[in-house]
């Protein structure tokens, strides 16, 4: 089963994402900020997630900072940044930091699932994109 780590500072958004992703059949671990996300990764150890979804803006430690640390530590896990695009240079910066993909807020559900499937190497499993 595809394992996901999802981090978002809004608990309701996080809950919604978790429930829907679980419904799609994913194994979901959640975190409400960057520090927690790094803790969850450490707990997982070798059993690391297949894809990480990070909200770019979070208190304590932002998704961008988490991304930077992960790539700094040599991690190759695909990371999808979810960004509100508040500034035009953000996508370029995140890409240069090693983001695998960027999803602008708000996103269509099918787009998100499509991205996850593509990155998890399960192409064809979702298949409901038009």
């Amino acid at each position, binding site marked *: 089963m595809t394992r996901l780590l999802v981090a978002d500072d*809004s608990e*309701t*958004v996080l*809950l*919604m*994402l978790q*429930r*829907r992703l679980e*419904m799609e059949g994913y194994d979901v671990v959640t975190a409400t900020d960057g520090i927690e996300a790094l803790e969850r990764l450490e707990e997982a150890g070798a059993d690391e997630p297949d894809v990480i979804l990070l909200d770019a803006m979070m208190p304590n430690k932002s998704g961008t900072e988490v991304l930077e640390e992960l790539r700094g530590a040599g991690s190759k896990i695909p990371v999808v940044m979810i960004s*509100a*695009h*508040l*500034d*035009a240079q953000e*996508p*370029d910066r995140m890409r240069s930091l090693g983001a695998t993909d960027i999803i*602008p*807020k*708000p996103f269509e*559900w099918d787009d998100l699932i499509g991205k996850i499937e593509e990155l998890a190497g399960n192409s064809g499993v979702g298949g409901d994109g*038009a």
Partner: protein
Amino acid sequence: MRFNPSLTSRLRIGFLVLFALLLLVSLLGVGRLFQVRVNYEDDISRFFQLELESERLRSAFILEQAAVRPPTGQKLPSQAEINRAAANFSDAVSRARDLTGSDVTLTADLNQLVANENAWRQKVAQPLVKGKIPPPGVESRQTKAVTDSGQKLADATRDARDGSRDHARTETRNTTLLVAAGLAGALLAALILFSGLINSMRAPLGRLVEGARRLAGGDLRTRVQVGGPVEIATLGRAFNEMANSLERDARERDRVEQMKDDFVLTVSHELRTPVTVVKGFAEMLTAQRQSLNPRQYEAAEVIAESSAQLQKMINDLLDLARSDAGKLRIEPHPTEVGPLVQRVGRQMRPHFEERDQTLSVSIQKDLPEIEADADRISQVLANLLTNANKYSPEGADVKLAATRVDDEIEFAVADNGPGLGEEELEHVFDRFWRAQSGETQEVGGTGLGLAIAKSLVDLHGGAISADSSEGEGATFRFVLPIAKDGRPTRTEPASRTKAGAPT
């Protein structure tokens, strides 16, 4: 404080000074001319009288000469005759003395005459009276001296008369010249005074004109240096007060505008999270149709639809607020036109099918790439298509086309709906504006789609327009510049083509 009289008092003083100068010069000139004339007339009459008197002296001397010789048949001259002639002579001398006045030459000539007369009396008259005949040389010499000095007085008098006339002429001429110079001087003084007045106004007036132009040109910080006559200075102060008030208003307007932008930006942003959650859960529920009863499913579907609509509206508002705040950014990359247009057509097709409308897509062959943010241009096309979809009746034909026009690509969305009137066309890109014609009242939507389309096209350096006539349908067109070969694109061009090329 500097003395700064008002314009009217300056003019008044100017005219008064001018008038006084003219009056003074005229009076002095006329008075002088009058004086010269009077002096001349006095002199002339005096010198005529003096000539007359010298004539009398001559005749008195002739009578005296005759009187000192005894008449025929008498031994001695008549003493009475001699006395009368001498009295005549001295009367004439005393009158002449009055007339010579202070004239040195004439007085000297007169004294010489009297001295010669006295010498003649002593050397010629007295011997004759005593019966002695003076030596022949003496009489003729003494007589000639008297006659000569009489003649000299007469000549000098005539010369003095001529001199007086010449003097009067010179004086008259000089006075006339002086008066003319005085009048010219007064006029010159007035000219200098008035040109000074005009100069004192010119600089501050020029500043005011310049200031007014700058203010009209939109530079609200414009202030003028206050100066010049009181009236102009007052005008300058009033101008500055006006500029102050304009600047204050503009600043207040900017502040309110900024507050509004910030408010919309914040509110939209804050609304987005809860709406995302509502929409997400509602979509999740509708995906579990089998575990819901029909009413629950219906409710979930309505919540999903409404929250999707709400989300769209919030995104539109956010886009506009960002656009107003100058924060709406695009990421232009060389983008293929065909795939982009095809993709939007494909995405929008279900909406047209829902209303039994046909959507035909035509794309000119071999179109060059455009320099564009593919997502944003898709959004523009989707907004235009949504517009056509909503405002055209069921069964309508909508055409989406992309063609090359010179160095630009033109995108056109044409419908055969009710069309737009001239007045409506003016407002079609205004935010929250919606066509008000009868049957289209029911159409939903935020009224922001076309406004956003315009903002986005403007950001791309393109131009959007609408043309239509009532009952003939409407066509929305926008043009975008084609990507220039050899122009370096801002970010890695190769890795981004996948956004516009799903094949």
